[in-house]
């Protein structure tokens, strides 16, 4: 799995997430994210490529969130597709991760 990292000022935007984030690749995703986010405190995930996510995928996102938080940072999402949104609602993840419609909105939230 190869994630892409764009860095604008202090904000790290992770793109090119896999189409499916499930039990098969969740462990690999966790490793990759942990590696790539080393030392990053303002992180945004572009979720628009993820069309299917299961509970293991949720677990991977929570791992990423905790990793960023441990470094004193914040993780935000944007471009969440309908199935992923439904799962996020089911496990109430919207309570612990901020979700935005667009990249712009997510970026701006760090500035305010």
């Amino acid at each position: 799995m190869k994630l892409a990292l764009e860095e604008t000022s202090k904000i790290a935007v992770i793109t090119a997430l896999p189409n499916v984030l499930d039990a098969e690749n969740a462990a690999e995703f966790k490793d990759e994210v942990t590696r790539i986010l080393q030392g990053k405190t303002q992180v945004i995930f572009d979720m628009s490529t993820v069309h299917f996510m299961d509970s293991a995928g949720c677990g991977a996102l929570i791992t990423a969130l905790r990793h960023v938080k441990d470094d004193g940072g914040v993780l935000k999402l944007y471009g969440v597709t309908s199935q992923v949104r439904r799962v996020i609602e089911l496990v109430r993840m919207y309570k612990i991760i901020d979700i935005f419609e667009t990249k712009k909105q997510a970026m701006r939230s760090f500035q305010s």
Partner: protein
Amino acid sequence: MPGDTLNNPSQCTVSQNPCREVPAKVLVVDDSRVARAYLELHLSKAGYAVTVAKDGKEALALLSENTSVVLLDLLMPEMDGMACLRHIREQHPDIPVIIITVSHEIAHAVDAMKNGAYYYVTKPFNPDEILALVEQAVRARSQTKKLHIIEGQLNKVHALETSVAAQIRKSLLVTGLPGELHGIKAGGLNVASKDIDGDFYDCFAVGSNCIDLIVGDVMGKGVPAALLGAEIKKRFMNVLYKLTRPSGTTSHPSPEKIVSTVHKEMIRRLREEETFFTLGYARFDMHRHLLSYVDCGHMRPIHFHHETNTCTLLQGVNMPIGFPLQDTFKQILVPFTPGDLFLFYSDGITEATDAKGAAYGEDRLMKFIRRNAHLEPRDLCDTIYKEVASYSHTESFTDDITCVAMKVDLTKPEEQSRPQWHLKIKSTLNELDRVRGFIVEVCRGLGKTMVDGERIKMIQIVATEITTNIIKHAYAGKKGKDILIEATTSPDEIMFNFYDWGVEFDFSTAPTPVFDGSREDGFGLHIIAHTADYVRYWRDEDGRNTACVTFFLNKRG
């Protein structure tokens, strides 16, 4: 006691008995010839038919039901007045007896009145007083006679009503149960009380998978209650027919929809008649092994669980039908497994009392069911009746004794339908993609209008979660083990069975989901439970585990 006018009889106006076509018969009993003659003269002149007797013995021989009044002396040879009075009271309790006594023996007269005499007159006689008293007594006698006639007529009417109500009950209220249908056995019993309650039940097949049971109890007794019960039953049939027809599909209206519609159609009439009825509407879906139950204030049915040999009560949320402030009715869903039994019953059973007035009660009934659940439904109902009769030491109950037992066959649920789709995979996580492809294939087979893309994705997530659980837990990550997925579809629903031959899933070890971000696992079961409409899990005797999930297509609840 005679009326107030008799407290001072001397002031009464003398009535001459002129209006009677047949003269009232007065029997004068006195050992004094002079007294007899005196009374005979005055009473005859007033229009009475008088017979005389010189002692008690002779009086009893002359006495008949046609005698209107007896004037009885207390002091006589042969049989004295008191003894004679006792005989009259025994043989003709309604004939008034006026005691003749001398003024210094009034205490005796009072004794006689305690023993049922109508009143007394004292010697020497005052003719006006006597005539006034006799007239009062004659009137009292004739009113008593009329009362007896009316009483007799009322009894006849009541007997007729009871027999009409019994006829209605037999032919309309508790019609026969189907015995066995779609893998469920039914047995019922209704023993009518003295006055006939409005208890009713009915059981019928709905479509090829469901059996519906209605049990109810109309407030009140007799013909009105029985007729209303019969009408309610008919109304349910009409509503079921009406709600099923327009859609033109094979789907059936839900029990809550049926009950709400019947309520809407009947509420006005129930309010006008100031009555109501309690009801239980149960639908046994033998395909999904699911009971949908609408309770409207009826007795709580008992669910006997075959696997654990335990009983639970089904608790509904609705008020009786006819109560104000209620227009929608909610159903509860209760999964059942083969061998389970449901008992529906009337308050006549749990409210039957023993000699000390203690009610039989739900707890005792549940214990009894646990001991006797092996019986066939009809035999179980008979046994319950015997049990309640022996508890209350009677077979003449004030309430109807009604119960219906429904028992699910012991065959395995998966043997009852033939799956149309299969997928066999090995226990590796890279098979998850194939599982999701299989879901798409099954759903597309039903047509786009039945399952849209969003729904397919939600079904996919459930399939992914179950398959992942099997690989990680049942097979503990071991590769190369078999997993079989079967799908059965109907216009109403899609059912998936996931089979594995690994370790049985232990629900007690599953972590409770924590939503505060402190844990990253434990969400799988939560997602399954909140996405599928119905979930079951069991292990066969041959070591095969089945996770069965059902998705309703037209969200009928």
